[in-house]
C-alpha cells in the first residue's frame, strides 16, 4: 500500500476533527466495497479470464466511482490488482467480482444472468433487495450499516467471513 493511500485510508477511518471533514457517504461506500474483497472468498474459477485482477464494477454512481479511484486504485486484494470499472452495459457487469448498483439502476441490471454467477452485488434500497441483491447499505443513525443476504451469496458460491457477518444484519431468505 503506497504511503499516500495509507494516509488517505487513515483519514477515512479516523474520527472527525475540527480541521478535517468527515468522510462522505460515497467515500465510505467506496472503502466498504474495497474491504468486501478481504472478507469474502470467491471460487477460484472466477479469475480464469482475468487471473491478476480483482474487478470492482460501479454502475450508476460517479461519486462512488471517484472515491474508489481515489482510495484504492492500484491496491491489491488477495494478491490481485484492484481494477475499478465503470459499468454501462449489462454484459460488462458479468466480468466483475464486486458489482455496485447505484439506486435507480436496479431495473437495468441483468439479475437473471448474475444470480448464479459468483458476483457480489452491492447496493442500497428496498428495490435492490427485492431484486436479489446480496449486500445492502443501510442508513444507521450517523453511519452506514450493512444488511447481508447470506443465502443469496451462498447460492452464488461466495463465502462470507463470519467477522463480516457479525457486524452486519444477516438475512437468510432467498
Amino acid at each position, binding site marked *: 500500500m503506497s504511503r499516500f493511500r495509507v494516509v488517505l*485510508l487513515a483519514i477515512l477511518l*479516523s*474520527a472527525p476533527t475540527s480541521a478535517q471533514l468527515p468522510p462522505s457517504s460515497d467515500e465510505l461506500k467506496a472503502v466498504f466495497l474495497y474491504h468486501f474483497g478481504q*472478507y469474502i472468498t470467491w471460487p477460484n474459477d472466477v479469475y480464469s479470464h482475468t487471473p491478476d485482477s480483482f474487478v470492482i464494477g460501479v454502475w450508476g454512481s460517479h461519486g462512488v466511482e471517484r472515491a474508489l479511484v481515489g482510495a484504492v486504485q492500484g491496491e491489491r486484494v488477495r494478491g490481485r490488482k484492484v481494477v475499478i470499472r465503470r459499468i454501462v452495459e449489462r454484459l460488462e457487469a458479468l466480468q466483475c467480482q464486486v458489482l455496485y448498483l447505484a439506486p435507480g439502476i436496479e431495473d437495468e441490471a441483468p439479475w437473471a444472468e448474475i444470480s448464479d454467477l459468483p458476483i457480489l452485488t452491492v447496493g442500497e434500497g428496498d428495490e435492490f433487495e427485492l431484486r436479489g441483491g446480496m449486500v445492502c447499505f443501510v442508513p444507521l443513525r450517523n453511519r452506514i450499516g450493512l444488511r447481508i443476504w447470506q443465502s443469496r451469496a451462498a447460492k452464488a458460491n461466495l463465502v462470507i467471513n463470519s*467477522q463480516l457477518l457479525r457486524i452486519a444484519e444477516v438475512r437468510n431468505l432467498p
Partner: protein
Amino acid sequence: MNVPFNSSIEARLRTVIVRACLTVICVTGLSLMVVECVILRHHALQSLQVRARILSSGLAASVMFENPEDATSLLHTLRGDPNTVAAAVILPGGSVFAEYLTPGQAPLPALSIGEHRITVSDLVHSSAILSPEGRPVGALVIKMSLGFVYQRLLYFSSITVLIMVCTAVLALFISHRIGRRISQPILALAATANRVQTTRDFSLRAEVSSRDEVGMLAESFNSMLALLQQHSVHLEEKVQERTVQLVRACQELEAFSYSVSHDLRAPVRTISGFTQILLDEAKEMTPEHAAYLGRIMSGVERMNSLMDALLDFSRVTNCALDTHLIDMTSLAKDVVAELLPDGPQPNIHISVHKMQPCRGDPMLVRQVFANLIGNALKYSRKREVAVISVYDERVPGCDAPTYVVRDNGAGFDAVRATRLFEVFERFHSPAEFEGTGVGLAITKRIVERHGGKIWARSSPDQGASFYFTLTADVRTPEMSVTSPMP
C-alpha cells in the same frame, strides 16, 4: 552466625540447625517470590498479548466497516476478566474508535504499536489491529491491573511464613534430639574425665557408645587411662621398692655410725691410757719424745670430739620430733648465757632482739642457736670487739619469720657457700679456728627436719649472716649470695 561459644554443644547445634533451616527457607522463599513476581508479570503480558490478538481479528471488521458499537461490545467482553480494567481501539489518527473503562479508570495513554508499559500497579499493552490482508487499521490498547500479582505474592509470603514457623518448630524438635544424641557421649566422657581427676582412679573407663569421632575419642581416652593405670602401678611398686631400700640403707648407716663411734672408743681409750702412763712413768724421756706423746694425746682428744659429733649427727637425723611453741627470744638468750658462763665480757657484744615464737622441737632448735651463735663467737673472737646480733626478719607475703644470726667475724668466700653445710667441710684450718666441721651439717639437718631452710651471706673478712626458717612455706633467697654484709 554468632553462636556463643560458652553455651553447650547441644544448644549450639540447635541454634545452628534452626538458623540454617530458617535461612534456607527465607532465601528460597524470597527467591521464589522474586521469580514468581517476574513470571506472573511475564504471564500477564503474554495473556494480554493473546487476548489482544483474539480481539483484534474481530475488531478489524468493526474498524474497517465503521462499526464502533460492535467494537465497543467486543471490548466489553473483557469484563469477564476482573484484572482487565480498560481497553480502547485507537485509530491511526489517534482518535478513540471504541472504549471500555471500568469505574475510576482514566482514558488510556497513546502507545506505539507493540509497546507495553509496566508500572507498579498495572500493565498497559498496545497491539495492532490487522485487516485480513495483514495491514494495520488501528491499535488495541489494553490495561491490566497487577493487583492479582501482589495478591498472589501476599498469599505466597503467608504460606512461606507458615512454612518457616512449622519448619522452625520441627527443626527445634529434630535438633534437640540430634543435639542430645551428639552431646551426651561427650558429656559422659567429660564426666568420666572429671571423676578420674577427682578420685585419681585410673581404673575408671569411659563408655564407648558409638563408632564415630566421639567413640574414637572415648577409646583413645580409655587407652590413655589404661596406660596411666599401668604406669601408676609400676611407679607405686618402684616407690615401695626404693623406700624399703632407703630404710634399710638408713638403718645400716645408723648402725654403722653407732658401731664406729662405740667400737672406735675402746682402742682410742687404750691409746690414750697407755700414752698417759708413758707420760707419767717414763723416766728417761727426752723432751722431744714427750712432745710426740703430747701430740698423740691431742690427736686422741680430737678423735673423741669427732666421734661425739658423729653420734650427735646420727641422733639428730633419727630422733623423733617433739614440737612445741618455742619462745625464740628466751631460747636464744639461754644459749648465749650457756656459751658465756662468766657473763658479759667487754670485747664481746651480743644483742638478742625480741623474736616471734615458732613451733618446733625446743632441744633441737636450741642446738641450732648453739651452733650458729657458737660459730659467731668463734669466728669473731679475733676482732677487737665481737659484735653479734640475733633477730628475726619478716619476708613480705609470708607469716613465718626468718631468724638471723649475724657477726662481724672472719666471714667466708660466698662462692663456696653451697658446701658450707656439708659434713666435715671447713673453710678455715684448725690452727686458725678449731672445730669438727659437723656443726653446720647438724644445724642444716635440724632445720630441714622442721621443714625449713637455712642459707648464709658473707664475704671474706666481712662477717657472716646465717638465716633459717622452721616452716616450709617461707620464701628464701639463693644460698650463695655475694652481697657484702650491710
